[in-house]
């Protein structure tokens, strides 16, 4: 299997875009990624496009708007991991030797398309009984509290960190810092999670151009970043009485990525992880083996995950600060890692960022731990 490189990255501002269609947002991200890569529309041989609530043929509509038609396009859905599943599929095609330059796009336009809380699919018995995604994570947070003495103040510190990081990201939805007290004063969504601990409703798109080693060389490629591993897993069936603070799904995806890349948890310099809720960030980084199990919230309070900390987490602002246009999220994480690795992250640049990890985990399907999880490891 041949190496895969990210040779171009682009994304729209995340936030409310009531005046734009999903296709227009997608096209804008694609064009920026193409320009960044120095490739033209005609160089793109195939595309994978992730979205969740955008109806049929999202990829064809977005690429059509952007001047690309006729090529193989695969629309993929894996709940909040849809965009990162698109990257996984696109990378697979380069490993297959089928193409030299492909595109992965994630796009979502949720403004006006959404009422109330995000839930599992309506076919799900738990959803029919009232389960929402905030409730899933609230119940996991209650266990983290009970088992590890985690507190609401500690979880609020995760949100405050990410919203502070977002201020340094011009593409982020949230533009001003939020204190721990302000997080705790925001209204309760699902006990113990407050509004400011839940990712917002967002519109946006992100795209990356992937290339083979051969094409990367032809492009010059001094700014190319290597996709050292891309792993996708789905949740295991829920059998027996498991510890809900343990992210088996995250660990299995990470394990494969660590093995394939030869890069272990201790080599990771920074991470973008799927912080759909404050507690989620803790569950992710503990599941990835980046922090000891049960200890992350307390360590955030000590500053270990800050931009200048031991292992910066969600320096982009994460989903909590940057926004969470579902299908776009997984691609945007990789865009951020690429910009950090290139040293192009401006005021939020992490010094010496040479190995980064992007983790994206989505959804909950009937009887399984989660819909999907991806782990991408990138290096320069």
């Amino acid at each position, binding site marked *: 299997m041949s190496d895969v490189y990210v040779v171009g990255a682009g994304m729209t501002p995340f936030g409310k875009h009531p005046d734009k269609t999903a296709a227009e947002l997608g096209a804008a991200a694609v064009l920026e990624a193409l320009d960044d890569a120095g490739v033209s529309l005609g160089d793109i041989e195939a595309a994978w496009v992730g979205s969740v609530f955008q109806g049929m043929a999202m990829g064809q509509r977005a690429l059509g708007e952007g001047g690309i038609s006729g090529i193989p396009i695969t629309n993929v859905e894996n709940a909040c991991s849809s965009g990162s599943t698109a990257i996984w599929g696109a990378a697979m095609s380069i490993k297959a030797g089928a193409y030299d330059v492909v595109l992965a796009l994630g796009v979502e336009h949720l403004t006006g398309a959404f*009422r*109330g*809380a995000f*839930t599992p699919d309506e076919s799900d*018995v*738990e959803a*029919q*009984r*009232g*389960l*929402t995604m*905030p*409730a899933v994570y*609230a*119940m*996991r947070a*209650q*266990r983290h509290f*009970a088992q590890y003495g985690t507190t609401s103040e500690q979880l609020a510190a995760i949100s405050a960190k990410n919203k502070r990081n977002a201020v340094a990201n011009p593409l982020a939805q949230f533009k001003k810092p939020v204190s721990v007290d302000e997080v705790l004063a925001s*209204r*309760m*969504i*699902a*006990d*113990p999670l407050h509004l400011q601990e839940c990712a917002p409703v967002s519109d946006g798109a992100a795209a990356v151009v992937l290339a083979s080693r051969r094409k990367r060389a032809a492009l010059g490629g001094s700014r190319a970043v290597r996709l050292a591993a891309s792993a996708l897993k789905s949740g*295991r*069936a*829920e*059998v*027996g*009485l*498991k510890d*809900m603070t343990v992210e088996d799904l995250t660990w299995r995806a990470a394990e494969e990525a660590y093995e394939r890349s030869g890069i272990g948890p201790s080599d990771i310099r920074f991470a973008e992880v799927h912080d759909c809720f404050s507690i989620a960030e803790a569950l992710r980084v503990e599941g990835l083996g980046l922090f000891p199990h049960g200890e992350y919230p307390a360590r955030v309070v000590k500053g270990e995950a800050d931009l200048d900390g031991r292992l910066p987490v969600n320096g982009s602002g994460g989903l909590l600060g940057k926004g969470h246009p579902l299908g776009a999220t997984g691609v945007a994480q990789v865009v951020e890692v690429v910009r950090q690795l290139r040293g192009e992250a401006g005021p939020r640049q992490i010094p010496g960022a040479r190995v980064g990890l992007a983790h994206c985990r989505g959804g909950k399907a009937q*009887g399984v731990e989660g819909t999907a999880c991806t782990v991408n490891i990138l290096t320069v």
Partner: protein
Amino acid sequence: MVSTEAATAVMKRPYEVEDGLVRLRAGRCPACNAVYCPARLVCDGCGHRGLEEILLAPRGKIYTFTTVHQSTPEFQTPYHLCYVDFDEQVRVMLPAAGEERPRIGEDVEIVLGTGPRLVGTEPEEGPHALMVAGSATGRGEEDV
């Protein structure tokens, strides 16, 4: 095609009432004893096809809980949700009756109540909502 027994089970009312006790319908693998609630066609653990139908104990223990303050338009907030662990080694998500906050480790029994759903938004499983109630905490039949 495989047996449609499990398929039919899904369409049935998901519980039975025996001697006033509400017991959830579930599926047990005859090969490895894994229990699934609701049942499914095939055992994930060992691949055995066709689970046998069992009824869970009418009581369980709260593994975790939350109070939902924002939901979809079909539901009246706030309401409590719990994951309940049963002796059969299976965990089921159910709403909790009453206003009192559930507690981790609390023993609860299954009751039929109105549930958090608004009138006119019934799910496929039927007119009665399954809920849990802890008699020790004052939640009970009289509250639902």
